[in-house]
């Protein structure tokens, strides 16, 4: 660890409690904190802390365990904690929050919220974390509110209805706090919603703008829909995006069009589903979009946190956005213009012959869901999913948790009913083929695989690279592990005993670096013995 970083640690106690936008912007200046979902706006989920490194990681031990008592019967603990000057701010299922001492795991306060039992959530009553700005925490609740909590007490300052759960909406995403906006998206892509992304005034909760991810009649992109299909067009926004302060652009992934598997009722490309959209943070106006999977029929939400990297591209510096997509292809885009620069498969896929020069997939019609249920790779949970990739500026590698789990895709007709399941078919497994998983290190500029680490089942946990030359990740079977960022060699592991379904984070408190992962209904923090 450099002298400057130690100085930052020692100064921690002296930092003002208020989390200004400038502090988040300059997150690298206070590496002991984790102030936004991906630590930095660029979505890299990289920790500059290096007290734990390649040569001492074998001495990593559990420091404390926080048990979430209010978890669901089958816990899916997906939170990314905010770490601020020795305090962690976490969310718990379904839409609760707590402040914990970062050195002991002991709670300072808890916020609990009753969620009506009729709230529909396709994939668990989960929450992925909060945003912080000023003295306020921002929580998206499953019943559709953006809730502002006082950082010191956990008391509600205000709450604003974002979307009505009776229409099929819910909120699971960690909001993203910018200078004078709190960005929040919605889930509900299986329940016939029309997706959008919202921005709110951090002080008042008044809505500043809304970007509909499915355009209405006459709006740009509406020709990619027919009839009234747009009204339940899906394209949810349930995974936190990234932000480029110089361009003042918010980058956010959009989910599957509805109904998921029956494309016949929605001919066309179905913009802006399964896309990355770049929006002006001030107005919410779309600067550009790139649709990874036009007219998706395999539930391949592009709800990924894009990774923003500046690099030399074919001889000149360029601002890039990197996405390892659920559809099995890896993409490099110019994030100023949205121009497609590179795309290639990084995982097993059989639905496309490849991509054309503009990055549009050349689709194999036999992969379309039908009554016969064709076997398609990736499966409906994709070659990766919502959990984060991580980029190490030190190793110049992109780390991706990869799934291989083929699916038989069935199509059937479905009638739209407000707030009800609206999928138009469904998936089945492929008998006797055991699903698998890996962590891949990709060369970000070519998409070539540099190394792989094998997992016995397709992961539901993201990765975090650190300046200690490590990559942390988790397995379904409960193993939390550290890999050598350069070679992929496993250096340390610990069996947590629970399903790991979250992204790792790291912070420092009291001069000690911690690495933490939720597992089962526990949040487990590790430090050197």
């Amino acid at each position, binding site marked *: 660890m450099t002298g400057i970083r130690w100085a930052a640690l020692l100064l921690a106690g002296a930092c003002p409690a208020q989390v200004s936008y400038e502090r988040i912007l300059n997150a690298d200046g206070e590496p002991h904190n984790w102030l936004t979902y991906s630590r930095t706006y660029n979505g890299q989920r990289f920790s500059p802390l290096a007290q734990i490194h390649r040569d001492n990681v074998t001495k990593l031990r559990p420091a404390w365990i926080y048990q979430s008592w209010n978890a669901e019967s089958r816990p899916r603990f997906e939170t990314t904690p905010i770490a601020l000057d020795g305090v962690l701010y976490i969310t718990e299922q379904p839409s609760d929050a707590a402040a914990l001492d970062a050195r002991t795991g002991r709670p300072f306060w808890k916020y609990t919220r009753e969620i009506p039992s009729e709230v529909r959530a396709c*994939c668990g009553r989960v929450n992925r974390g909060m945003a912080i700005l000023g003295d306020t925490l921002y929580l998206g609740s499953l019943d559709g509110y953006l809730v502002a909590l006082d950082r010191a007490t956990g008391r509600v300052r205000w709450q604003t209805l974002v979307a009505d759960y009776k229409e099929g909406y819910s909120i699971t995403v960690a909001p993203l706090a910018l200078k004078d906006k709190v960005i929040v998206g919605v889930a509900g892509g299986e329940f016939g919603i029309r997706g959008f992304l919202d921005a709110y005034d951090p002080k008042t909760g008044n809505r500043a703008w809304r970007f509909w991810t499915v355009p209405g009649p006459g709006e740009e992109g509406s020709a990619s829909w027919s009839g009234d299909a747009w009204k339940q067009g899906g394209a949810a926004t349930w995974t936190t995006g990234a932000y480029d302060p110089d361009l003042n652009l918010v980058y956010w992934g959009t989910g599957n069009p509805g109904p998921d598997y029956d494309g016949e009722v929605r001919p066309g490309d179905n913009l802006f589903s399964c896309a990355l959209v770049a929006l002006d943070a001030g107005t919410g106006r779309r600067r550009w979009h790139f649709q990874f999977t036009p007219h998706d029929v395999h539930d391949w939400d592009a709800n990924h946190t894009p990774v923003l990297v500046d690099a030399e591209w074919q001889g000149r510096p360029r601002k890039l956005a990197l996405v390892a997509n659920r559809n099995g292809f890896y993409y490099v885009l110019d994030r100023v213009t949205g121009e497609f620069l590179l795309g290639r498969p990084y995982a097993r896929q059989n639905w496309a012959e490849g991509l054309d020069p503009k990055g549009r997939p050349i689709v194999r019609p036999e992969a379309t869901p039908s*009554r016969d249920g064709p076997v398609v790779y990736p*499966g*409906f*949970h994709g070659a990766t999913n919502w959990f984060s990739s991580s980029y190490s500026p030190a190793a110049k590698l992109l780390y991706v948790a990869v799934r291989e789990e083929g*699916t038989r895709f*069935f199509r*059937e007709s479905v009638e739209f009913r407000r707030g009800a399941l609206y999928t138009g*078919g*469904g*998936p*089945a*497994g*492929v*008998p*006797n*083929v*055991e*699903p698998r998983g890996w962590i891949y290190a990709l060369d970000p500029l070519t998409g070539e695989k540099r190394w792989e*680490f*094998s*997992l*016995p*089942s*397709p992961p*539901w946990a993201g990765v975090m690279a650190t300046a200690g030359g490590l990559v942390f990740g988790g*397995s*379904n*079977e*409960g*193993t939390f*592990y550290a890999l050598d960022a350069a070679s992929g060699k*496993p250096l340390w*592991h610990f*069996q947590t005993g629970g*399903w790991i379904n979250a992204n790792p984070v790291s912070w420092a408190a009291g001069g000690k670096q911690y690495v933490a992962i939720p597992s089962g209904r526990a949040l487990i923090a590790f430090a050197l013995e």
Partner: protein
Amino acid sequence: MRCAPLLLLLSAAAIHAQSGGKAYSTYCVDCHGIQGEGGRGPSLARPRLPRAATDAELEQIIRMGIPNTSMPPTRVYGQELRELLRYVRSLAKTQPVAAAGEPRRGEAIFRGKGNCASCHMVRGEGGRMGPDLTHIGAVRGPAHLRQSIVEPAAELPNHFAQYRLVIPFPDNFLMLELRTRDGNLVRGSRLNEDPFTVQVRGLDDRLHSFDKSEIAELRRLDGESPMTGYRGVLSEEQIDDVVAYLSSLRDAP
């Protein structure tokens, strides 16, 4: 079994003609048999289905499958579903063809020449390497039982047919053969696995757990069964007798 495809064709035409029969022959016949006599799946030709006393329960099972079994969800709706329900109920009245062999002779072979009881338990007696067969006649049909005896590997449980969020172990049946760095050879069925360890029930009837760093070679014997086939070991008549014995083990589970 050799004549089965022809039989299937003929009878499939017959059941196709009936209301609900088309759906049955599309989705159900492979596992439950042409007349509902059972196969890989349990017999439906009996007055009471233990998991589906009511039509609502039967509909639930057809539409959603049965978790942790080979019964997958079936995508059938509306009129087709209603006809299929009626057709499945009608199978209760069919008289299953009695197995050709003689159960008491079969039991003697099971405990004697076949040495089946060394691995399989029936009503608390026998080995535990293979499945407990106390209720096997209620959940598997004679054709499947016969095939399991002559060619066990062909009738391994059909796993991963249901899509699932997380892959819990033990899940699919998988034989492993591994050689440790200190030279031990272990064969057995996988009970559990994570990225760094693997747990095995050995053919030596012991529970083994290995750190993968201790293993020099790990072979996954996909599609292999620990059971030897009995073709040539028992005569056709003797196999019929064992099938008849197993089919008679119909205590409701």
